[in-house]
């Protein structure tokens, strides 16, 4: 089943075409890598998929809902985490979970159950009363991810979730992503670490507002005769 369906998505800002006839789809339970240079139009497309901005034209369905008319339904079914916005630094871990659970309208008992479950999975139960600001960056990122899936969304959008994180924590983070995908939550992720692109089932690469490549990492490497995704990326970017 397709959880995201995009056909001929166009987004213009005045004369500037940020997204130029994008067509792609994301399967349910898939880890989908959304790559592209800065300014290629990734953020614009991501905002549209999250229901934060309306497309100029084209068909966009997220979790079966139309981004033109059903953004409220979409927002209930998605989770979002970015490197920039994560959690409240001056609240404790537990309070952050309570707050975000409340935002998604979960009943108190459900929030408690999910918080215990998610903290247990991270092995951070004993830290639940710690103020978030005092925790190491890697833990914060993992906690932010857990909060993004507290309401068991159909799909979670991760915008450069591992920026600046140490290499071991980065890998632990990806293991959590795998686990989440195994539970049927679709993961839509952007990253600047090209090795992370290999962890995705499929990746698309954007340049100048267009999707210029979309396939499994293995097929892309074969097609561009490259040793890794970074080479693919450079070959595409340099024409």
């Amino acid at each position: 089943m397709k959880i995201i369906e995009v056909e001929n998505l166009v987004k213009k800002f005045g004369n500037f075409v940020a997204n130029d006839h994008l067509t792609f789809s994301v399967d349910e339970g898939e880890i989908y890598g959304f790559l592209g240079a800065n300014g290629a139009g990734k953020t614009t497309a991501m905002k549209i998929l999250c229901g934060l901005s309306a497309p100029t034209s084209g068909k966009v369905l997220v979790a079966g809902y139309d981004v033109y008319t059903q953004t409220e339904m979409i927002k209930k079914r998605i989770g979002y985490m970015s490197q920039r916005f994560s959690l409240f630094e001056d609240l404790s871990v537990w309070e952050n979970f309570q707050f975000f659970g409340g935002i998604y309208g979960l009943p108190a008992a459900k929030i408690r159950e999910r918080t215990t479950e998610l903290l247990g999975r991270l092995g951070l139960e004993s830290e639940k009363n710690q103020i978030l600001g005092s925790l190491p960056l890697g833990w914060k990122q993992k906690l932010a991810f857990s909060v993004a899936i507290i309401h068991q969304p159909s799909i979670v959008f991760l915008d450069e979730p591992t920026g600046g994180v140490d290499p071991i924590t980065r890998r632990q983070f990806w293991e959590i992503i795998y686990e989440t995908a195994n539970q049927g939550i679709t993961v839509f992720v952007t990253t600047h670490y090209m090795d992370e692109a290999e962890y995705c089932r499929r990746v698309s690469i954007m340049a100048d507002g267009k999707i210029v490549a979309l396939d499994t990492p293995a097929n892309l490497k074969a097609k561009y005769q490259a040793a890794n995704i970074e080479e693919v990326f450079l070959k595409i970017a340099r024409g």
Partner: protein
Amino acid sequence: MSPSISIKAVNITKRYGDKTALDDISFEVNRGELFGFIGPDGAGKTSLFRLITSLLIPDGGTLTVDGLDTVKDYTKLRKILGYMPGRFSLYQDLTVEENLRFFAGIFKTTLEANYDLVKDIYSHIEPFKTRKAGKLSGGMKQKLALSCALIHKPEILVLDEPTTGVDAVSRIEFWEMLNKLRQSGITIIVSTPYMDEASRCDRVALIQGGKIMSIDTPEAIRNNFGRDLWALKADDIYRLLVDLRRFESTWTAFPFGEHIHLSLSDKSIKPAEIALYLEALGHSNVHISKIEPSIEDCFMEMMSVGSGTGEE
């Protein structure tokens, strides 16, 4: 002080309240060297660079740059430094050219006088010189920031995470520029969280948790890995990782792109034994090959040794 040494740090400690950002670190950077500090966020890179640029005072130890003490001789020191802070720190409401002229002005020079110096870099963004800095793309912002840091012909260039948040193509271009600059004899210290950028430096310091884990040339660091490293591949990569973690002789197992890098605590284990173990668990298409460790492998190995366990 040897004239060939540019930066000399002896037992530097920096604390913020009860948090120790830098814990008794010492190192030397040679004149004309491209020296990298490689480590994740929170390792202490920014604190160290602010100490070197005299923006902070160490709680312990001494730090000299070209023989100038960062505490006592800061006025002289600031004349020879070019600094690019971690955040994009230019005036977003000024145009590209206005920014450059401003920074030339505060160092009592002009764009024209030092145009040759920044020409290579500035020429990339010169077509956009009337555009506001805030409207530039990430890669162009970095180029402008570098031009501004270079405009007064500094002897030492301090670049704090210049490639963070910049796409892969711009990152490579940026390193190519640094490479050219190095040939002009300027000392460059640069920090980065991207381990793969280590190979671009003459020497690197791997930094984690306020401590330097290792200082050497990238080759020497790789040669000192100390264990055999295997790259494994199979159809179900996630299950492969889980099963490898359970393998008796596994020291570390980490995903690396489409492979899993495996190091063993027992040197006598042959790849055939690993293959056998995996096939017994029902893995198909298992490929095992011995590989040379990358800086990232070395970094994780040192982190693992430092924390005393292979797994965490």
